[in-house]
């Protein structure tokens, strides 16, 4: 019998600490599968964020650096500029990337740093207990928007791909989702393309993955899939926002 699906080599044997139905596990696996398929494990340096994925360095079987909250793109820049032959990726959540780390991500894209960013957007701060994120939807209840997010008070959720698409330096920007098998496959294709572009030296690539936080959304994991499909995708449309052909 031939094994057609199993744990990728670029993951360690460590059991994920994530909550049941959290999509970080799916996205970790996809990144690791891509590293395996492109043969990049041995030359990859991963940059872990602050947030639920803070222990990413325990799960990816590649050299890793733990960055301060939001600073992963700057840390990745430091690695890539000193060791251009390494493959560098940051793995960041929405609080990390779109709030405290907004300057770092915008400027990494503006410089067209030859790195890959995996941006996990679950519209909430997971690790700190479900507070409002820069991507929290209008009306969405969180522990710091208990009556639902109101635009009069906190403005509107940030669309990172659309925002970065205005920058000539951004080479590849795509938003995908992992709420069903078809979209999981498409997410993997996008991640693969992002890493492939880095291998080719094409510059900054980012894949925004809409993902579920059932615990802090107070939903069952299966019900959370519907929230992505019906609510998140309505505000955060899937698609490619910058292709290497249109870059610059």
């Amino acid at each position, binding site marked *: *019998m*031939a*094994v*057609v*699906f*199993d*744990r990728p080599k670029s*993951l360690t044997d460590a*059991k*994920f600490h*994530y*909550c*049941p*139905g*959290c*999509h*970080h*596990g*799916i996205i970790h*696996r996809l990144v690791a599968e891509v590293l395996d398929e492109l043969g990049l494990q041995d030359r990859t340096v991963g940059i872990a964020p602050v947030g639920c994925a803070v222990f990413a360095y325990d799960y990816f079987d590649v050299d890793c650096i733990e960055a301060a909250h939001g600073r992963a793109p700057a840390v990745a820049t430091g690695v890539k500029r000193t060791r251009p032959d390494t493959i560098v990726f940051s793995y960041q959540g929405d609080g990390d990337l779109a709030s405290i780390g907004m300057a770092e991500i915008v400027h990494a894209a503006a410089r067209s740093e030859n790195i890959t960013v995996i941006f996990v957007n679950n519209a909430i701060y997971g690790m700190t207990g479900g507070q409002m994120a820069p991507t929290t939807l209008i009306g969405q209840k969180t522990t710091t928007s208990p009556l639902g997010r109101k635009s009069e008070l906190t403005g509107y959720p940030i669309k990172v791909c659309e925002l970065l698409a205005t920058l000539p330096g951004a080479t590849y920007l795509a938003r995908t989702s*992992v709420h*069903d*098998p078809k979209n*999981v*496959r498409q997410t993997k294709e996008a991640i693969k393309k992002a890493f492939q572009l880095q291998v080719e030296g094409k510059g900054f690539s980012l894949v925004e993955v809409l993902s579920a936080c*059932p615990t802090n959304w107070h939903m*069952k*994991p*299966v019900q959370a*899939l519907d929230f992505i499909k019906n609510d998140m995708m309505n505000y955060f449309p899937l698609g490619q926002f910058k292709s290497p052909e249109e870059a610059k």
Partner: protein
Amino acid sequence: MSKVRVTFNEELCKGCELCKNACPKGIIEMAGYINAMGYHPAKLVNPQECVGCGFCALMCPDLVIKIEKEEIK
């Protein structure tokens, strides 16, 4: 035609049911017992009906599922 073997590493399962939800054949159920983490693990109830689509494994966040195939000539 192919022969498929899908195995669940029950000790990794957190009982989120995303595999069960994704299975087009409806042949994944949650066990009546609990694993060491306290979750009802997912398991295949009618393996002979499995077509090896891999949807369950694609959706599993915890790498519980391993799929093996054998081509039958």
